[in-house]
C-alpha cells in the first residue's frame, strides 16, 4: 500500500514535466507575439523588441523552457504579460473563487444525486425511478452551456429574479453553482443507482434478510455500505468534470475565478498565466485521481493495488 502510494506520487513528476513540455511547445507554436494584439494601434517594432527582450521571449525556445522549469520549481512563474502583476498573485486571487464554486457544486451534486440514486434503486421501475433516470440522462447529455443559457433566460431575462453576470452575494452564486452541479449530479445518480441495484442482488443481502434483520438495517448497513464503494471513486472524475465545467461556467457568468482567467489568458497569449494554470489543473487532477485510488483500496480490501 505504502509502496503503491509512493510510486504513484513519484509518477506525478515526469507527468508534470510532459504536461509542461506540451503546453509550452503548443503556446510557443502560436503565431504572433502577445504584444501585437491591438490591430488598430500596433506598437512600434522597437517597443515589441524591447518587451520581448524584457520577458525573455527573444531567446531560443529551449532556453526559455529550461529557464521556466528552473523558476517553476521555486514556484516563480514570472509576471503576466498583460497585467503587470505576478502570476502567482493573479492565480491566488482567482483560486478561492473557483474553489468555492467547485466545492458548492460538488456538495450540491452529492446532495441531489445520492438520495436520488438510492431511492430510485430501492423503488426500481417506479415513477420515481423513471423520473430520476430521465434527470440523469438529460443532465448528463445536454451541454452545460445550453442548460446555463436556458436557466439564464428563465431566471434572469424573463423573471428577472437573478443577476446574469458577476460574483459577490448569494444571488450571483445560485445559477453558476446549479449549472456546474448538474452534470456531476446526473452522472453520480446513474452510478449510485447501478451500484445499489448490483448490491441488492448479492447473496449476503439475502442472508441478512433471512436472518430477520429489519429492512432498514439491511439497506443501510449491508446494501449501502457496499454500494457506496464505486460511488466514492466517482469523486475523482467528477472533480475533473467540475474543473472543465468551470471554464465554461465562469466565462459565461463572468465569475472572476481561474477558469475564466484561463480562457482569457489563452485569448491574450499570456504565456506565463497559461503555463501556471495548466500545471495547477493537471496537478490537481492527478492528486484527485491518486487519492481516489488509494481510498478505493482502503474501502475495498478485495481490490489489489499492486498492479
Amino acid at each position, binding site marked *: 500500500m505504502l509502496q503503491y502510494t509512493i510510486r504513484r506520487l513519484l*509518477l506525478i513528476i*515526469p*507527468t*508534470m514535466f*510532459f*504536461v509542461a513540455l*506540451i*503546453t509550452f511547445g*503548443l*503556446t510557443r*507554436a*502560436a*503565431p*504572433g507575439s502577445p504584444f501585437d494584439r491591438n490591430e488598430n494601434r500596433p506598437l512600434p517594432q522597437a517597443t515589441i523588441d524591447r518587451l520581448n527582450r524584457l520577458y525573455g521571449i527573444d531567446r531560443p525556445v529551449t532556453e526559455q523552457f529550461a529557464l521556466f522549469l528552473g523558476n517553476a520549481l521555486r514556484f516563480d512563474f514570472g509576471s503576466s504579460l498583460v497585467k503587470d502583476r505576478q502570476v502567482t498573485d493573479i492565480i491566488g486571487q482567482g483560486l478561492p473563487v473557483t474553489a468555492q464554486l467547485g466545492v458548492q457544486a460538488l456538495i450540491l451534486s452529492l446532495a441531489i444525486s445520492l438520495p436520488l440514486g438510492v431511492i430510485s434503486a430501492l423503488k426500481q421501475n417506479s415513477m420515481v425511478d423513471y423520473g430520476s433516470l430521465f434527470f440523469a*440522462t*438529460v443532465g*448528463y*447529455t*445536454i*451541454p452545460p*452551456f*445550453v442548460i446555463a*443559457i*436556458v436557466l*439564464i*433566460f428563465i431566471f434572469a*431575462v424573463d423573471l428577472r429574479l437573478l443577476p*446574469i453576470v458577476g460574483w459577490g452575494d448569494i444571488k450571483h452564486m445560485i445559477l453558476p453553482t446549479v449549472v456546474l452541479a448538474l452534470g456531476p449530479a446526473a452522472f453520480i445518480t*446513474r*452510478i449510485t443507482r*447501478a451500484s445499489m*441495484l*448490483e448490491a441488492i442482488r448479492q447473496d449476503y443481502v439475502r442472508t441478512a434478510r433471512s436472518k430477520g434483520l429489519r429492512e432498514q438495517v439491511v439497506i443501510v448497513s449491508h446494501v449501502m455500505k457496499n454500494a457506496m464503494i464505486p460511488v466514492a471513486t466517482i469523486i475523482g472524475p467528477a472533480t*475533473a468534470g467540475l*474543473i*472543465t465545467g468551470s*471554464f*465554461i461556467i465562469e*466565462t459565461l457568468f463572468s465569475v472572476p475565478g481561474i477558469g475564466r482567467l*484561463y*480562457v482569457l489568458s*489563452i*485569448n491574450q*497569449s499570456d504565456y506565463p498565466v*497559461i503555463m501556471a494554470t*495548466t500545471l495547477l*489543473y*493537471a496537478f490537481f*487532477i*492527478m492528486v484527485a*485521481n491518486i487519492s481516489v485510488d488509494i481510498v478505493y483500496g482502503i474501502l475495498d480490501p478485495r481490490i489489489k493495488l499492486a498492479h
Partner: protein
Amino acid sequence: MATVATTAAQQRAIDANVLLRKQRSLWGDALYRLFRNKAAMVGIAIIILAGILAIFAPLIAPYDPTLQNTKLNNMDPVFAGTPYTNPHYFLGSDELGRDILSRLIWSARVSMVVGFVPTALIFVIGASLGMLAGFYGGWVDNLLMRFTDIVYAFPDLLFLIIIMAALRNTGIGEVLGGLLLIFVALAVISWVGLARLIRGQVLSLKEKEFVEAARAIGVPTRRIMFRHLFPNALAPVIVTLAFAVPGAMLAEATLSFLGIGIKPPTPTWGVMINEGFTVFSQSPWPVMLPAACISVVMLAFTFLGDGLRDALDPRMKI
C-alpha cells in the same frame, strides 16, 4: 394420420417454436435486443434525420447560410407572435440578417462530420495500438501506459483549448475552416482511452482456451489477432465509439461557443449560440434554436449508446 385442425394457441406455439429454432448469432441477438429498445430506435431515427439534413443540406436549406440581408435582421420566427417576423424566414434571421433555418440545417452537416471523422480516427489508432500493446506487451505497452498517464492528467477541454488557441491561426488551422485541426486534436486526446480498453480486453482474452486452441493447431499470429481476439473484444469498443461521436460533437460545440472552434462564417450550432448570445436579452431565438438542435442530437446519440450497451452486454449496467 388424421389431420387435426390446429387451434390458434397451437399455431402460436408453432410459430414461436420456428422463431426459436431459427439460428441467431450473438450479434443477431444483440441487434434484436437493440431493435426492441424504443429509446434507441428513437435515437436512430433522429440520427438518420440529422444525417439526411447533413447530406442534402444544399438542397433542403432555403437560403445560402452565409447570405446576409441586413435590412431584415433580427427577425423572430413566424410563430413567435411578435411584429418582427417575415414570411421568408420561417425561423427568423440573425443579427446579420442570415436565415436561421438554413444555418441550422448546414450546421447539422458540420456536426455530423465532426462527430464521425474523429471517431473513425480514434478507432483506427486506438484499436491497432491497443491490440499491439495487449498482445505483445513490452515497450509498446509501457509507452502506451505512460502516455495514458499524461493524457489522463490533462483535462480534455484544457488540452483542446490550448491546441485550438495555439494552432488556429496557422496553416493547419485554416484548412476546412478549422475542421481539420479539430479532428486531429480530438483524435490525439481520445484514442488513448480506446487503446487502453482494447489492451485490457486482449490481455484477458489471449489467456482464454479458444486462443490457446487456435495457437495449438498452428493458426498464424495475425489471424489469431484479427479473427479470434478482435471480434471478441469488439462489444465494449462499439459502445465506447457510440459515445465518442456525441462527445466529439459536444467538444466542437463547446469550443465554437467559447469562440475558438470552427471559424465563422461556417455555421455550426456552437458558433450560432456564440453569435446569438450578444443579442440574447433582446431575442432568445438565435440562441435557443441551435441549443435545442444540439440537445436533441446529443440525446439521440446517448439513447443509441445506452441501447447498444444494454444490447451488447446485458450484464454491464450503468
